[in-house]
Structure formats: structure tokens, C-alpha cells
């Protein structure tokens, strides 16, 4: 029964995303990026690089090409991670407040489904819309790079779950703000601000040295651990692709997941108590 209800809510979110041109907008922007990568990553450049390293010496040609591709992959994956998360937040911020419009929410709440189901169904629909876009965007670029270099490194595809996870955490904030204030603009602002704050807080090793008081250093560290680690997730992704040994994906995932869970539970609590 719940599967049917969730299916209907997810399908409705897709239909709304398509009708509002959000779905197509996301895909148009992704297609634009795919075309840019097609244009920038010229096959003759790669072939040229291979031929140059092949001629220059027999000791390290394969390693150099592999390293060249790794660096390219890490750069491209980080760019896609930031781009995909930004665009996804912008595209989906209106999908929660729209369902709370008077005259629409009253009818939805009259159906035999809990408010939690309604909110989570909508959330899942948003996630699936963005998942499709990420698979299309990152998958296409992986295929382009693979065809052009002949190197098919599956680590590049790690960008898909990492970017989707970062979006899922930010979407919890969008949901909470949307439920509390029913404003798409405020939801977007909050999520984007959180991305920027995460980037600033992540520079703690540098900033902590500049802070002159103990309490300010403690405050910085506390905030760092509270706020979702959107920057650290991207950084860990880059390090994994570069085979760096100190890459740590689990810490930002676990702390960010805890943040997202608490925010989502708060959103459910507010939604369940609200009068419409």
C-alpha cells in the first residue's frame, strides 16, 4: 500500500518538475556542460600527449598518461560535483513549498496517508529527479573521456553518489525551510549559504592559526563539525580519484548524514504539527 502511495508521490514530483521546466532545465544545462567537455577535451590533444610522452622516454610513458587522466578526472569530477549540487538545489527548491499551497495541501491531507509519508514521498521524488540528471551528466562525460583516452576508470563515477548525497543533505535544509516558511527563495538561500559556510569552515587548519582566542577556535571547530561537509566531500572525492592515501570520505559522509537526519526529523516534526 505504502509503495503505491510513494510511487504516486514520486511520479507527481516528476510530472511537476517536467511541467515547471525544472527537469528539462536541468538536462539542458547538463547537455550544455557535456558539449563544453566535448569541445574542450579534443581527441588530438590527448593523442598528442600520448605521442609526446611515448617519444620522450621509455621509463614513464604509461604512468604519465595515467596521471594526466587522473588529474583530469579529479578536476572534472570536482567541477561536476559543485556544478551538479548548485544546479540541483536551485532546480528543486520550489518543489516542496508548491505542495503546501492552500487548496492543494488540504486535499492531500484528506487522503489516508500520514504527513510523514507525504513529506518523504516528495523528498524521494526530488532525489530521483536529481539522480537521473547526475547519471546523465556524469555518465555522459565519463563515456566521452573513456572513448577519447581509452581509459575507463570507474572511480570517476563515484561523483554520482557523492554529489547525490551532498544534494540529499542540502535538500533536508530546503525541506525544513520550505515547511517552516513556505518560501522557495528562502530555501534556496539557506542551502546555498550552507554550501558556502561549509567551504569557509573547512579551511580550519589555516583559520584556527589566525584566531587569537581559545573560545573562537573552539567555536570554529564546533561549527565545522555541526555543518554538513559539502566542501570536504568534494575534496575527498578528488583525493580518491588521485589515489591519495589520506583520502577520507567516511568522516564527511557520517557527520553530514547525521546533520541531514536531524534536520529532516525536525522538518517532519514541524510538518506534523502545522495547521493548513
Amino acid at each position, binding site marked *: *500500500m505504502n509503495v*503505491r*502511495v510513494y*510511487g*504516486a*508521490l514520486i*511520479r*507527481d514530483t516528476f*510530472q*511537476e518538475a*517536467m*511541467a*515547471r521546466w525544472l527537469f528539462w532545465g536541468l538536462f539542458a544545462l547538463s547537455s550544455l556542460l557535456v558539449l563544453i567537455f566535448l569541445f574542450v577535451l579534443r581527441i588530438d590533444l590527448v593523442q598528442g600527449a600520448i605521442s609526446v610522452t611515448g617519444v620522450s622516454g621509455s621509463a614513464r610513458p604509461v604512468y604519465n598518461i595515467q596521471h594526466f587522466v587522473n588529474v583530469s578526472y579529479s578536476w572534472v569530477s570536482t567541477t561536476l560535483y559543485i556544478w551538479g549540487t548548485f544546479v540541483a538545489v536551485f532546480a528543486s527548491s520550489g518543489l516542496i513549498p508548491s505542495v503546501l*499551497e*492552500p*487548496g*492543494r*495541501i*488540504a*486535499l*492531500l*491531507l*484528506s*487522503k*489516508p*496517508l*500520514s504527513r510523514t509519508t507525504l513529506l518523504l514521498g516528495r523528498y524521494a521524488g526530488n532525489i530521483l529527479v536529481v539522480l537521473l540528471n547526475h547519471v546523465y551528466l556524469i555518465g555522459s562525460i565519463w563515456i566521452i573521456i573513456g572513448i577519447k583516452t581509452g581509459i575507463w576508470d570507474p572511480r570517476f563515477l563515484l561523483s554520482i553518489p557523492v554529489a547525490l548525497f551532498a544534494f540529499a543533505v542540502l535538500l533536508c535544509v530546503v525541506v525544513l525551510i520550505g515547511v517552516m516558511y513556505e518560501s522557495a527563495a528562502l530555501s534556496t538561500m539557506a542551502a546555498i549559504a550552507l554550501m558556502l559556510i561549509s567551504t569557509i569552515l573547512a579551511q580550519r587548519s589555516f583559520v584556527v592559526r589566525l584566531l587569537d582566542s581559545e573560545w573562537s577556535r573552539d567555536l570554529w571547530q564546533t561549527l565545522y563539525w555541526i555543518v554538513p561537509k559539502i566542501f570536504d566531500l568534494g575534496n575527498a572525492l578528488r583525493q580518491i580519484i588521485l589515489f591519495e592515501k589520506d583520502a577520507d570520505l567516511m568522516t564527511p559522509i557520517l557527520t553530514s548524514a547525521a546533520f541531514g537526519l536531524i534536520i529532516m526529523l525536525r522538518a517532519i516534526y514541524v510538518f506534523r*504539527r502545522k*495547521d*493548513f
Partner: protein
Amino acid sequence: MITEYALETKGLEKIYRARFGGREIKAVSDLSLRVPVGAKFGLLGANGAGKTTFVKMVLSAVHPTGGSATIFGKDAAHPEARRPVGYLPENHRFPTYLSGTGMLDFYGALSGIDSADRKKRIPEYLDMVGLNGWGDVRIKKYSKGMLQRLGLAQALIHKPRLLILDEPTDGVDPVGRREIRDVLNRLTGSGVTVFLNSHLLAEVESFCEYVAILKKGQLALEGKISSLVAGTGYSIVASNIPDAAKEAFKQRGVTISPHDSGLELRAATREESNQIIDSIRAAGGFIESMHASNISLEDVFIKTTTNAGQAEKVA
């Protein structure tokens, strides 16, 4: 004998509190109501009387601050209690990106109908509300009346046992109103309880058996319409009534309507009719005629909503 109630509320109350210790607003106060299974029940009240808040509390869109509500004996706050309920809200906003078929499919799925049943029922219900051939058209192209009909189909598609309709004929032309009324009459014939929230007194009077009148969030009057309008009232036709006197009559809750010979004033009792006659003559007006007549629901409504008093129950 009625042994079960489709809808029952006990001491239902909703107080809205302004933030930061602001004043309280009692939207609904100590409202106890019973809607028998299979009844055609009308809820009346002036704007702001608490009708929509009451309906929203029953459907859990608004949380009561006191009292309880049950639907077929189940706590209305539980989602399962709403399974046998069909609802058409006032000022609905259906998703305009859906077609008529898509909308019925979506709300049908939320109501628990499986895919095969939805496919079978959607054309049937579109046909029932006179929207045959419109299923594939996006609902943003529908007129107000068509949206009401589609909303009715949405409320009916899961074959509810209790139908709650908030201004169902709003924006519908007279022919459409008659068709909607016919659909509702067929449903009540098959045992469905209809709860009608409407400001159209004639609609409530012609369709419902029971009525409750709310005044400032409280139950002011409840009973069978046939009992409420029973008895004899009086119609007084008078001319040359000064404006000040007309205003005074309105403030007293006297129903006044234009008449070929001047104005027609309605009184519920003999005493009241005599008082009206005295007042007309004192104001310099002329009595043209007077005769006994039935009291309309409008008379009952105006009298109830303009006069202070305790809740009254008529058997």
C-alpha cells in the same frame, strides 16, 4: 433507528494563538455534532463562523486544541480513518500540469485504489460528472465549473462512505448544479453520507435533511430541516417604509425582500408579526397585506445568526 454516526465530534475546539503572547482567537468552540450514517447533512454559517476550520479539523489539516472527532467510530486524526472519506475542498488548487485522467489517477492512487481499478474507474467517473472526452486535456484548460465536476469525481473515485463537500457548486451553471445534485442524490440512495458545507441556503434546503448552523464558532442550531421550517410564519407587505425603519428591521434580523407593492417582511411568530406591524405604522408606513406562510431556511438562518442565544436542538 440510527445506531452509528458517520461523523461525530465532541467538544471540538480550535484556538489560534498569535505569536509572542498575542491575543487568542477562538475559531471553533465546544462543537459537538453527530452526522448519522446515510444522512444528507448541511453545515451553514456566516463568513468566518468556523465552517471550514471545522471541516479541516475533521480531516486533520488543522489540529484541534480541544475535543475529539471520529469518522465511523475511528479517531479522525488517524490516517486510516480518512480512507472512507471523499473530500472536495473550497478554493481547491489542483495541479494544473496534470490532465483530468492524470489527476484522478494521482488522487485515486493516494486513496488506495490499485492501478487496474483506476484505469477502469476513471472513464466511468469522468462520464458521471459530464467530463467525457476531457480526460486527456490538461486541467489548466478547464473552466471553473469543469474543475468543480472533476473535483467531485476525485472525491468519489474511491467509492467513499462519507462525502465532505465544501461549496461543491461554486462556479457551476444551473444545469451543472442540477446534475451535481442528481449525482449526490444517487449516492445517498446507495447509503453514502453527504456532508455539505455551503453558503447557498437554497441548495442546502433542497438537498439536505439535517442542518447545523454555526455562529462565531459555536453550534447555534441543529436539527432536521423539516422540523426547523415547520410551523406557520407570517408575510407582511408594506409600503412607504422610511430607510431608518428598514435599517432597524434589518438589525432586528427581520428578512426584507422587494415586493410589487413595496417590501415584504417575514415574521416567524404572531407576536413578532404584530411588533413589525406596530413598528411600520409608527414609522408612517402602510400595511398593504398580510398572510400566513411557511418559514424558509433563510429565515431560520438569519434569525439564528443575528440573534444571540444558546445552541438549540430541534428533533
